[in-house]
């Protein structure tokens, strides 16, 4: 339920409204907008049927939330949530700047990781991705270097300053991964692993939540609601393609999910063109479409030698291709009113000669 207050409401009136709601066992969340202050209320709404909320001084209207999700809803919080990732300068997602997360699908070793990190940073990426634990459709496929990869990611962050994003697959890994990574990714296959969602909500690290292969927008929002229900709201939603009858692409990028999500929720929304298309050459057009549709960022797979990649070889970009995509993306970002981090010249031999 949302209580919209009158302009010019006093703090004392606001206190009285909150007490009236909280005494019914509700939690309240205050959101001060430029023109209006709204009070989000979470609890069993039947408990409030006796309380004449609408007649309390300062109340303009009381709006029930009819959707199954509450805290993720835009009605609940008027301002867009901007998630800051990493310490120091870090990176922010959800503001005016387009966030580009790039890096290898999985961390396969030191050299390839450092090389990828320097390449993506030079091209203007603001965060580094790299899988330590890989969920694979086949149990016999490469499943990541685990803890060793986490150590390498920490090292590369120190060298490049890029905050790191890596996937957590299991509740037992949450604490370990959170100790190293700046943002925890929940993969498409785990989107409805509710124990994992709750566990991740507890550790207070930004979460990148990917849409399940066959999940509806509502199911994605409800999955995010699980994390917000733990009292933590730094969650980024990621459209990464859904399963359809079409086989020309690995998945079908649901471009319309971006504006739908942006309308429904205050959380940032990013797109993964690499998994959506499943082909390196599709990354550019899908990225442009995502940015045009209003995405707050992109997550792109880059590998120094895609042909030797142990996973997702077909969809990983070479450093040259990534540079090219980033350069061609700039006018689209500008047209969408977004800024992008500047490209910087790559330090000669950076990361490559280790």
């Amino acid at each position: 339920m949302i209580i919209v207050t009158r302009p010019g409401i006093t703090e004392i009136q606001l206190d009285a409204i909150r007490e009236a709601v909280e005494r019914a066992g509700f939690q309240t969340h205050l959101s001060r907008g430029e023109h209006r202050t709204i009070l989000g209320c979470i609890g069993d709404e039947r408990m409030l049927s006796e309380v004449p909320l609408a007649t309390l001084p300062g109340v303009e209207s009381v709006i029930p939330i009819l959707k199954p999700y509450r805290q993720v809803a835009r009605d609940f919080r008027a301002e867009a949530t901007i998630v800051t990732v990493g310490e120091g300068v870090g990176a922010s997602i959800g503001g005016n700047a387009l966030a580009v997360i790039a890096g290898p699908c999985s961390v396969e070793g030191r050299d390839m990781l450092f090389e990828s990190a320097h390449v993506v940073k030079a091209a203007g990426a603001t965060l580094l991705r790299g899988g330590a634990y890989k969920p694979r459709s086949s149990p016999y496929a490469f499943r990541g270097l685990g803890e060793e990869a986490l150590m390498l990611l920490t090292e590369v962050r120190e060298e490049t300053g890029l905050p790191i994003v890596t996937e957590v697959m299991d509740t037992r890994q949450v604490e370990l991964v959170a100790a190293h990574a700046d943002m925890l990714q929940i993969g498409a296959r785990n989107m409805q692993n509710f124990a994992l969602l709750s566990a991740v909500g507890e550790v207070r690290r930004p979460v990148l939540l990917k849409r399940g292969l066959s999940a509806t927008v509502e199911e994605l929002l409800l999955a995010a609601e699980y994390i917000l229900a733990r009292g933590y709201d730094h969650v980024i939603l990621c459209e990464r393609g859904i399963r359809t009858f079409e086989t020309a692409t690995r998945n079908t990028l649901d471009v319309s999910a971006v504006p739908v999500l942006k309308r429904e929720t205050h959380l940032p929304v990013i797109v993964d063109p690499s998994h959506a298309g499943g082909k390196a050459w599709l990354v550019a057009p899908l990225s442009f479409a995502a940015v045009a549709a209003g995405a707050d960022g992109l997550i792109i797979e880059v590998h120094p030698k895609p042909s030797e990649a142990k996973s997702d070889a077909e969809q990983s970009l070479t450093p040259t291709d990534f540079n090219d995509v980033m350069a061609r993306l700039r006018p689209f970002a500008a047209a969408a009113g977004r800024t992008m981090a500047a490209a910087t010249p790559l330090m000669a031999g950076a990361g490559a000669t280790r």
Partner: protein
Amino acid sequence: MTRERDAKGMAAIDSLRVRIEKADDALLALLQRRMRLARAIGKAKQEAGLPILDPAREARVVRRVAARARELGMPAEEVRSLFWNIIALCRSEQIHARTARSARSVK
């Protein structure tokens, strides 16, 4: 010259840190006192046949401290959430004490 200034700055920080630790100790002592009082109320509630959870009272407590915090120029929203946590701590203290009492009476 700068090294001297650095050393001076560090000494100032260290002495402030000592004072922060003293303030933390004082906070803990107060928290301990609040928890003890909560246990006493919990016992009285049990004898009077009242439930531990009293949302109306909790809401009143939070409203009072939020208003007080504002008068003191403190960020009221953060103080509210801090006090909800303190209340939760004291409430769980009452629950533990009650469970312990009923375990003893069973024996």
